[in-house]
């Protein structure tokens, strides 16, 4: 039993020797979201966010992904809409200025050779929900590009409360919010 534990530790060490720590290059990275407003697509971005990653593309087990998103940096390119989403019924900037995603369970995805799934937890507006983030990994000469997305139901995070909770019918804001990202990573 002791021997086995030693082996396991050795194995883990061996593995982490290959996995690298990655830091995000904010100027070359993008985090976008889109919802529907009166049956019309309404896109937005989070201008400030950060990604930290401990990852080996060849052996994703033992990886770790940590993303922090400055919710108050949301921009839907409309002064009127930006003012609305800051309120308590929507993102509630005053109480919940930041969202986080953490995953310690990154696995290969059957979608393709460079595809992975990060099973993790999204904390948004104080609510924690399990979220699967699908992404592709492309090594470049000066780092790597991580690209992907996921879809969440805004209702699960109390985004749009009261009469805004309605997601069907004319005046409704759609239930689904799609999130897309393209992150430029450099070895830390």
């Amino acid at each position, binding site marked *: 039993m002791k021997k086995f534990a030693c082996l396991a530790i050795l194995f883990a060490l061996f593995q982490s020797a290959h996995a690298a720590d990655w830091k995000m290059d904010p100027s070359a990275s993008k985090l976008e979201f889109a919802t529907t407003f009166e049956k019309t697509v309404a896109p937005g971005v989070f201008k400030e966010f950060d990604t930290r990653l401990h990852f080996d593309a060849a052996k994703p087990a033992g990886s770790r992904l940590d993303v922090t998103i400055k919710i108050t940096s949301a921009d839907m390119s*409309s002064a*009127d809409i930006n003012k609305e989403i800051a309120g308590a019924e929507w993102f509630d900037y005053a109480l919940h200025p930041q969202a986080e995603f953490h995953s310690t369970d990154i696995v290969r995805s059957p979608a393709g050779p460079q595809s992975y799934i990060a099973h993790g937890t999204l904390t948004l507006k104080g609510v924690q929900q399990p979220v699967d983030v699908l992404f592709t990994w492309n090594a470049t000469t000066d780092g790597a590009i991580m690209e992907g997305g996921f879809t969440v139901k805004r209702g699960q995070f109390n985004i749009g409360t009261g009469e805004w909770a309605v997601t069907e019918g004319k005046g409704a804001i759609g239930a689904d919010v799609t999130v897309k990202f393209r992150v430029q990573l450099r070895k830390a």
Partner: protein
Amino acid sequence: MKLANSDTAWGAPAKFFHWVSAALIFTQFALGWVAVSTRMSPTKLNLFVWHKSIGMLILALVVLRLLWRVFNIAPSLPADTPAWERAVAHASHALLYVLMIAMPMAGWIINSAANIPFSIFWAIPLPAIAAPDKHLAELAALAHLSLFIALAGLLVLHVGAALRHHFVKKNNLLIRMLPALKWLK
């Protein structure tokens, strides 16, 4: 049912355009004010979709109407109309057409500059004709409001003139714009 206008009468399409536009424009006045004064809610968003959609419909109608108008003659004014009244009638009608185009155009600019996602009747996405710009949106809203005041004022004159022809001058000017009587019965 006569289609083309003659020197003495309006054809059915001209009457249709006139009264449908009139009804939609009065609807717009009410909708515009109610939408602006409603507190932020899904209802307010819906009121605005109705307002903007009907406004774009008016714009489409006025384009068709003007095409119809230029390929047609218009009935002449009663023979006893003094020259200055003719001039005022023509100028005010031209101005009504200008306002029927300018109002929705100003609205379209507000919507583009404010960058509010919008599909006409929830179906046809309206392309932006201006880049997102808070300042421009405010300017266009001021123009939209000013044009509304001008249009409302001109309509008081327009309707007043129509009623004067009917009740004071006792000519058939209003009657000839009304739908043929057999429609009304």
